[in-house]
Structure formats: C-alpha cells, structure tokens
C-alpha cells in the first residue's frame, strides 16, 4: 500500500514536470532541456515571494505562479524566437545553454545553502494516515491534487478555449496556422509560459517537501523520459509515461537496488525508443526510416 502511495506521489511529480516538456514540444517542436532549471527557478520564485509577503501565504503563492508565467514568456521572447527555423540541434543546445546560465545565476543570487520555503510561509508538512496503514504527507496530497487540477485544466484549455485551439492548430501545422491568422509568436510564448508555470508549481511543491537546493534541476532531467515514453506530443501520454516510470523506479528501488534510482528512467526510455520511438500515445511523425 505504501508502495502504491509512493508511486502515485512520484508519478504525479513526474507528470507535473513532464507536461511542460509536452506543451513546448507539441506546440513548437522544441525539446526544452532547460525545464529542470526553469522548475528550480519557479521554486526560488516562491522562496523570494514568500519572504516578501510572509503574512499572506496565498498571495505569495499566486505571485510566484504569475512570476513563473512571466519568466516563461520572457524566455521565449528573449531567446527562443530567434531559434525558430534553426536546426534541431541549435534549438536544443540553446535550451541547454540557457539551463547552465540559469543554474549559475541562481546560485549567484540565492547562494548554495538549503532553503525551506514552507517555513517562510508558516505552513507545516504533516503526515497523514491513510487506510491500509500507508502514510502520505500534506505536500504529497497537494501534489496529487495539483497534478489532477493542472491536467484537467490543460485538457479543458486545449479543447474548449480559443487560445487552446490556436495552440493545437499551431502544433499541427505551423505554416497553415499562421496563414489562417494565428499569431505564432503569441502562441509559442503562451506555451513557454504555461510550461514554466506548471514546472514551477512542481518545483515549489518539491522544494516544500525536501527543501530547496541547487541540485533540484536533476529531477527535471529524470522527468523527461516520462514525457518521451508517453509520447512527446500527448498530454495523456505524459500522464501514463510518468506512472510507468515512477512505478518502475519505486519497485526496482524497493526490490532490487537503490543505486538504480538515477538510471531506471533512462533504461525504460531506451527500451521505448527501440520498440516505439514515438511513444505510447504520440503521433508517428517523420521518424520512420528512409
């Protein structure tokens, strides 16, 4: 039972992070390897706003979310729009370089010691007893709720709202979408903003659970196999992939060897790439052999 809870919590962490990869890839065909760092930036954003509005935790949270959205949009307009039309390698490398830059800048600004944004907000991370003797922390519950909300929200957004439909159109065929009068830059910027927002949420929750350190970005790197296993352009796939990766990781750590933790997601990813490169739910694109 405890294992199932662990899988659910880890899976929802991965799902919350990997939906950022999916959003950006689906809309603009760029894999953002800076997502881990952007996630960490979101967490530091919460830390900063928490010390600013320490009396009103909810205001701090809202401010941190708004900050995340703005950072994402800023990243697009400062950097990524210049990369449209460049090769795949150039775009990926640009995100990698951005990640390194952010990593260094965050250490410069916030230092290297572990921070606890939850203490700043004056909230506690209690442990709750579930039926069957399993335990889950408040943050774990918040994670599950948050992931469910984010995914439901994204589904509704992409299906029903004007901007969501524009985003899907841009992802399907950028040229045609542009010719129908959709402003691609706005759509791409929105995708980056939403991805950074959701990633930032994941970062905040992770930081609330385990403290905020300069090594948080590694979780982001471990989450991207989840997005790939599910299929890089499918939100449903990201959810399924996250559960698969989390399940494999938790079970293997529990029954085989804790050292495997860092490598399991990548083994699953490799197996998936060999069998079905486009992922479980992804659309089969131009990856077939000549």
């Amino acid at each position, binding site marked *: 039972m405890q294992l199932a809870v662990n899988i659910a919590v880890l899976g929802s962490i991965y799902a919350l992070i990997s939906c950022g990869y999916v959003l950006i890839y689906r809309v603009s065909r760029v894999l953002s390897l800076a997502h881990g760092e952007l996630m960490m930036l979101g967490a530091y954003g919460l830390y900063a706003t928490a010390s600013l509005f320490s009396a009103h935790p909810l205001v701090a949270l809202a401010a941190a979310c708004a900050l995340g959205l703005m950072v994402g949009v800023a990243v697009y307009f400062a950097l990524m729009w*210049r990369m449209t039309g460049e090769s795949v390698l150039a775009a990926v*490398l640009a995100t990698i370089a951005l990640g*390194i830059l952010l990593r*260094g800048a965050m250490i410069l600004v916030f230092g290297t010691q572990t921070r606890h944004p939850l203490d700043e907000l004056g909230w506690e991370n209690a442990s709750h007893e579930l039926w069957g003797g399993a335990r889950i922390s408040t943050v774990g519950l918040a994670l599950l709720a948050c992931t469910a909300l984010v995914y439901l929200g994204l589904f509704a957004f992409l299906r029903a709202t004007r901007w969501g439909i524009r985003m899907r159109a841009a992802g399907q065929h950028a040229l045609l979408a542009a010719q129908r009068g959709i402003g691609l830059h706005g759509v791409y910027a929105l995708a980056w903003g939403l991805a950074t927002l959701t990633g930032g949420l994941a970062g905040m929750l992770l930081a609330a659970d385990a403290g905020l350190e300069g090594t948080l970005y590694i979780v982001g790197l471990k989450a991207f196999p989840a997005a790939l296993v599910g299929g890089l352009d499918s939100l449903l796939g990201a959810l399924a992939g996250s559960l698969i990766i989390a399940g494999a990781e938790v079970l293997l750590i529990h029954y085989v060897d804790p050292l*495997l933790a860092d490598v399991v997601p990548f083994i699953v990813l490799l197996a998936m790439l060999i069998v079905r490169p486009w992922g479980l739910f992804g659309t089969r694109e131009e*990856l077939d052999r*000549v």
Partner: protein
Amino acid sequence: MSQPRSSGYWHTRYAQDTALVETRTQKFWLAALALALGTYPFLANALWLDLANQVLLASIGAVALMLLTGYAGQISLGHAGLLAAGAFTAGILFQELAAPMWVTLPAAAAVGAALGLVFGLPSLRLRGLYLAVSTLALHFIVIHIGAEYETKRGYSTGIVMDSPVQDARAWYFVLLAASAATVLFSLNLLRSRTGRAWRAIHGRETVAEALGIHVARAKLTAFVVSSMLAAVSGALFAYFRGFVSVEAFSLYLTIQYVAMVIIGGMGSVLGALLGTVFVVLFPYLIDAAMRALGVADRLASLVFAINYAGFGLVMLLFLVFEPQGLVGLWRRAQNWALLWPFKQRPVQR
C-alpha cells in the same frame, strides 16, 4: 571551403591534387607552427604547460565529436559516457591486471568501438532529437555501470592510477603526438570515400541513399570512429589525471564538448581545435578577469557559479549571433584580408 590559396587551379599531377598542403606559404606557416609547438614547453611556465596539456587532451575528444556531429550530422549527447568508458577501461585493467599502457590504450579503443556500435544502433531508426535523447540515455547507463564498479569493488572515491609518463613536459609531447595524429587521421578520413559519405548523409539521407551510399553502414562507421577516438581520449585523461571517478564524467562534460564543437564552428576540424582552446581556457579567462577587476577574493566561493553562468551566456551568444562559430569569424577575417580592397568574392569557377 575552397579558399583562394594559390592564384589558380594549376594542378598537373595527381600528387598535387591529393596533397594536404598546397602552397609554399602554407608550408612555411605550417613549419612555423610546428616550431612554435615544439619549443613551447621549454618557454612556458608550469601553469601554461598544464593548460596546453589540457587543451591537447580535450582536442582529441572534440575532433571525435566533430566527426560525428559536425560532419556526419548525428547529434550525440553521450560523449561524456564514451570518455568515461575509455577511462574506466584503462582504470579497471590497470587496477585488476596491472596492465601497462600499451595494453590499456588499445583495449580502451576496442571498448570505445564496441560502445560506438551500441550508441549508433538507435541512429538507424531515430533521427535528430530522438537520437540525441537515446545517446543521453546511454550516457546515464554507462555512468551507472562505472559507479556500480566503483562501489562493488570498494573504490567509492575513485580508482587511483600511476602513469608511465610523469613529467608535464613529457606529457606535452605525448599529447601533442596523439592530438596531431588524430587531426591528421580525421583530415584524411574526411577526404576519403567514408568522409564524403558522411557529408552526403548530413546533407540529406534520402539523396545519399539514392547516390548509392549505404546509409546504415556510414552512420555506424561514424559512431564507431568517433567513439573509438573519444575512448582513447578518455583513457589518456585517466592516465593524465592519475585518477578515475564517475564524478568527472557528468552531463556537464558532454555539454562542454558540444560547446567546443558549436563555439568552434560546425563542420570544420580547425573549428574543433579553436573551440577546444576557447572552452578549456574559459574558466581561466574568467578568473583572470575577476583578478583584474579586483573582486577575486570577495567572490572566491562563487567562482564555479560565475563560470556556469558565463559559459551558458557565451554559448547562447554564439548560437544566436555567430552560428558559424570561431571558424566563421576566422574565415570572414581571412576573406577580408584576401579580397581587400574588394568586398565581394569573384564568381566561383
């Protein structure tokens, strides 16, 4: 490419066509370069000698990556894994069997070639982004195997090795020879059938296949050759440091090598060399700049963060403003000097 070196196309013998060095001016500058490289270790102090050694060592790996990414167009994010494989092969053979260097280096090359085959297999099905991701996954797996060996055998901090070459000056000549051999080998390979096939694949796979190039074989060859060189470079690194540990082969090392290729300029061996010099010297440049500004002591604890941030920034600037890299700058300067007082090249023959 074809820079106007000689004043025209005057070749009358095949030997002239295949020569690497065309004109007397080129021969002169090449000799001057050889002389400068030969006398360098006797003039430089310990720091500069060490820097030169680092550059020479890294240049082997950078040229290897350039063959794969810059010429054959196969994106790899697993370079650190290959370097680690070479280093660990050397380290394990030394530790378990006390094998001498002339055994460990070929063994590292063999392991590298075998791993290259493994790294290359996904490239038969995957392209671009997905290939990069699969090599990244393989990187983590290789590193995991190395870490597993370290913990299982009780070398949790790393494997200590002693090298037959001790003196920094001796190392300089060993590394210079290795680097020069790599560059010569690559230049000649790139002019051969294999190199032309790689460039054709880079251009467009379908067309390459239509031209009668065995795409799968050419891709695998690219991976095998590149990984072999990378593994040898890793083994040399192990001997040079006298120490092997998985911590040295993080993803950041891959990024550094990719940065060498990018900053140097895609599709040019000279670019790989220039990029190596730039990337290896970059932390020292930052350090020197901080010293010159007089803030070195105050920021001593943050040096690595400044390095990270500066490195990311420089890489971004190159990607955005000078995608041709240092070699692009160099070619532009060369063209300017060669064509002056004119601005445009004459119509190509």
